[in-house]
């Protein structure tokens, strides 16, 4: 197999007395969809937050394309081409969909107006309409605050935001949890499309059928560690469940 695109080794994270990650490893290869599965509280979201720079690990190493990196803030992750759909979405509810899509990367007016800090809302709205359209989301009132959207529409906004900007890796923490059938299919299609564009996708999901269907590879976490890795074409739901619940020996321990 090729060199890993993104590699995490021995990540440890404490929250007070809780040990959320206890020496967790994780690999993402180029041009793949890797699913990250595990029981509630296994540490999936924590691992993603660390790789995306919004939390700092207590111990461990991260490397991107073979280079050791330090992801000190979300901004640094974004600069490295890493984007994230957080489980709690992390949208600004009072702003509209296009403002959220472009938050932190606003399009500015050309010329002197842009230098003065004036936003190009028209272009941003046009871009937003296109991005949301690709996800099958029809925002009837594009200027409505995100808080007024349905849960699924909000999730689509968050997904659109990260796939639009990712150039290396995109993390999706349960991106379809609130979505309807059509929107779920669209999000999964989008994930496949960005993989074909050369961006690796990390999908966290509790839906094993979905995982087996879209992922190329599957990594399983339990109690803050990676415990198993599977080729999605060969794995079965029973194998995944038994790895998640401790039915098989831990990776490396054997």
């Amino acid at each position, binding site marked *: 197999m090729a060199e890993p695109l993104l590699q995490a080794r021995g990540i440890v994270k404490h929250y007070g007395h809780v040990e959320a990650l206890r020496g967790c490893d994780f690999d993402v290869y180029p041009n793949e969809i890797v699913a990250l599965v595990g029981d509630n509280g296994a540490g999936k979201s924590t691992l993603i937050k660390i790789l*995306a720079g*919004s939390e700092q690990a207590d111990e461990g190493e991260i490397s991107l394309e073979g280079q050791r990196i330090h992801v000190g*803030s*979300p*901004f640094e992750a*974004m600069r490295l081409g890493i984007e*994230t759909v*957080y489980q709690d*979405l*992390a*949208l*600004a*509810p*009072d*702003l509209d969909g296009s*403002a959220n899509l472009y*938050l*932190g*990367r*606003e399009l*500015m007016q050309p010329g002197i107006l842009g230098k*003065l*800090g*004036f*936003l190009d*809302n028209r272009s941003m709205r046009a871009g937003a309409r296109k991005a949301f359209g690709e996800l099958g989301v029809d925002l009837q*009132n594009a*200027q409505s605050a995100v*808080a*007024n959207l*349905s849960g699924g529409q909000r999730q689509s906004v968050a997904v659109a935001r990260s796939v639009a900007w990712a150039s290396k890796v995109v993390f999706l923490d349960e991106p379809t949890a609130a979505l309807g059938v059509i929107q779920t299919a669209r999000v999964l299609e989008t994930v496949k499309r960005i993989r074909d564009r050369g961006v690796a996708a990390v999908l966290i999901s509790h839906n094993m059928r979905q995982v087996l269907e879209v992922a190329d590879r599957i990594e399983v976490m339990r109690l803050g560690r990676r415990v198993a890795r599977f080729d999605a074409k060969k794995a079965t739901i029973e194998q995944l469940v038994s790895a998640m619940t401790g039915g098989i020996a831990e990776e490396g321990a054997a």
Partner: protein
Amino acid sequence: MTALTPGRGQAMRLAIAGRFAPLAARWKAFSATRFGSIVARTLGTNGAWIFLLLVALMFVFNFLAPGKFWTEFNVRTMAENVSVLLVIAVGETFVMATGGIDLSVGYVLLFSGVTSAQAMNWGGHDPTNSGWDIVLLGLAVALGSGLGWGVLNGLVVAKAKVPALIATLGTLGMSWGLAEILSNGQDLRYLPSIIGDMGTGRVFDKIPFVVIVAILVAVVGGVTLNLTRFGRYTLAIGSNQEAARRAGINVDRHLIKVYAMSGMLAGFAGFMSLAIFTTTTISGHANDNLQAIAAVVIGGTSLVGGVATVVGTTIGVCIPMVLFSGFTILGYQSFWRDVAVGAVLILAVYADQLRRRRRERR
């Protein structure tokens, strides 16, 4: 979230909502049109209502005191009296839009007026006939003093993570105390006559300079809040600070800028106050901070941030003034203004709460 207890309260709410439903529906239809949406967004969520309230108050007072309330003199006096407050309220709008609060503005205003006046009196020389160089020195000192306090507020809030309420309460006390110490509690009365001329000057013999300056500040503030990246970041931080941070916005630096701007506007307001009163008016700013905050909240800026308009704030500054003037002309004690403003304030926050609750229930 507290669940609504069904019963009398809810029945009443429904009845009230029912009474206003046709109006509300019509407003909703209007704000769906292209022109309407511009109006609606300019006025903000509470904006339409408080604008109507302001107009209604003017009509009522004009009706009750014909020929006295709606005169050129009275309108000009009211405008002059709100101009200083409007300037600090614009800064306060940005601070509150981030979900913060700046209690220090009134005393930073005072402090800046004192340091500015003292700078112009430096070395014990009487500046009455001084030229523009001394005036500009005074302006620079006022702006610099305000900026200094603002940056301090910003650093304490953004970096030291002290809640804004306490951080700015602290600088309120510090700037107040230092203003008293520096001035020995004595008002400084010797100022360049140019400054006094600016305070009394009028455009076309009708509109006071200070009013025009305040309106300019409000226009620039409104444009900045609604049309620029600075404004967008301000609202994003107030809306969800963590989301703004995860979007790569340097939240701490932006917060420092916002508090710095509020401080600098307070310093500028201190200089305007020198121009209007030609003295430092040490005892005259005790309530400026609360008046500014009330104006911002009445204007529809959400107490938790994320939603704000400068147009709303401008209306929010005017309503207490109209009440004050109206009650005074009608011969009531002006304290009725405080009673009325208090009630309007509570209603404004209640409306904001209702809106949020409706939203969270979805």
